[in-house]
């Protein structure tokens, strides 16, 4: 885990992180942990009958991976807001790359905050998630 040790600068980027190719086991592990047992994410025949080529990832799994990436960067205890928009589905075998940069430093009621913009892209380069988050500075 790394934290901000110097004055945050607008435009500063976190080193991108690429997760290993996602497996069906990763989907199921997330479903068990979260309690979301929607069959589209583990039941192949249900997914095919519904019109999809296979099962696909739980959106909240990649949201969780993106959250892990930014909280490892700026400190989970400092997080005050995290927002993502689901832009594209994620499929078995996908390699997700997370990126984030500081876009604002401002004074809030509870102290100085940074706002970051972040993305989680598939190996095709297309974003699966886009979002922004705010962290309180120490």
């Amino acid at each position, binding site marked *: 885990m790394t934290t901000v040790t110097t004055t945050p600068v607008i435009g500063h980027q976190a080193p991108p992180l690429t997760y290993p190719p996602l497996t069906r086991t990763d989907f199921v592990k997330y479903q068990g942990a*979260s*309690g979301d047992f929607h069959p589209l994410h583990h039941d192949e025949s249900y997914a095919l009958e*519904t019109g999809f080529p296979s099962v696909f990832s739980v*959106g909240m799994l990649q949201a969780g*991976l993106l*959250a892990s990436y930014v909280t490892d960067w700026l400190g989970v205890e400092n997080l005050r807001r995290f927002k*993502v928009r689901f832009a594209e589905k994620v499929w078995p075998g996908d390699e997700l790359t997370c990126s984030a940069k500081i876009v604002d430093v401002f004074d809030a009621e509870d102290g100085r905050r940074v706002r970051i913009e972040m993305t989680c892209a598939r190996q095709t380069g297309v974003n699966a998630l886009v979002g922004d988050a705010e962290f309180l500075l120490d």
Partner: protein
Amino acid sequence: MSYEFPLDYSKIREFARAVMTDDAAHTGTEPVIPPTMLTSGRMIWEPAEQSGFVKLGFDRRRILHGEEEYVFHGPLPRAGQTLTADTRIGESFEKPGKRGGVMTFAKMITEFRDDSGRLVATQNSTIIQTATTGNSEGSK
């Protein structure tokens, strides 16, 4: 209407592994939750009769997740706390689907309070019902 969402350290550990973080903040017996774990309040602890998804009345095969936002009004909650959660349906609106039909967007808001009644976190979800099944409209 509200329900209790107890934060258990082993469940936090399991969730942290599933979202692939080894941050020490999520280990030990009083770990903080990974932020998106708030979603488990609805998934695991919400009683069926209070289900926001049932209130929406959307077709399960056509549901997509549009957006998700977590606002923390102070430090993240920790194991050992029991949050009280209350979900309400916010505004909804319709848009034409790209391949005909109608897409419906709805907001679902859940507030989480600690045992002193202090608002700890707010979850703002945008849920979409697509015009047809098996397409990629919307997202997720």
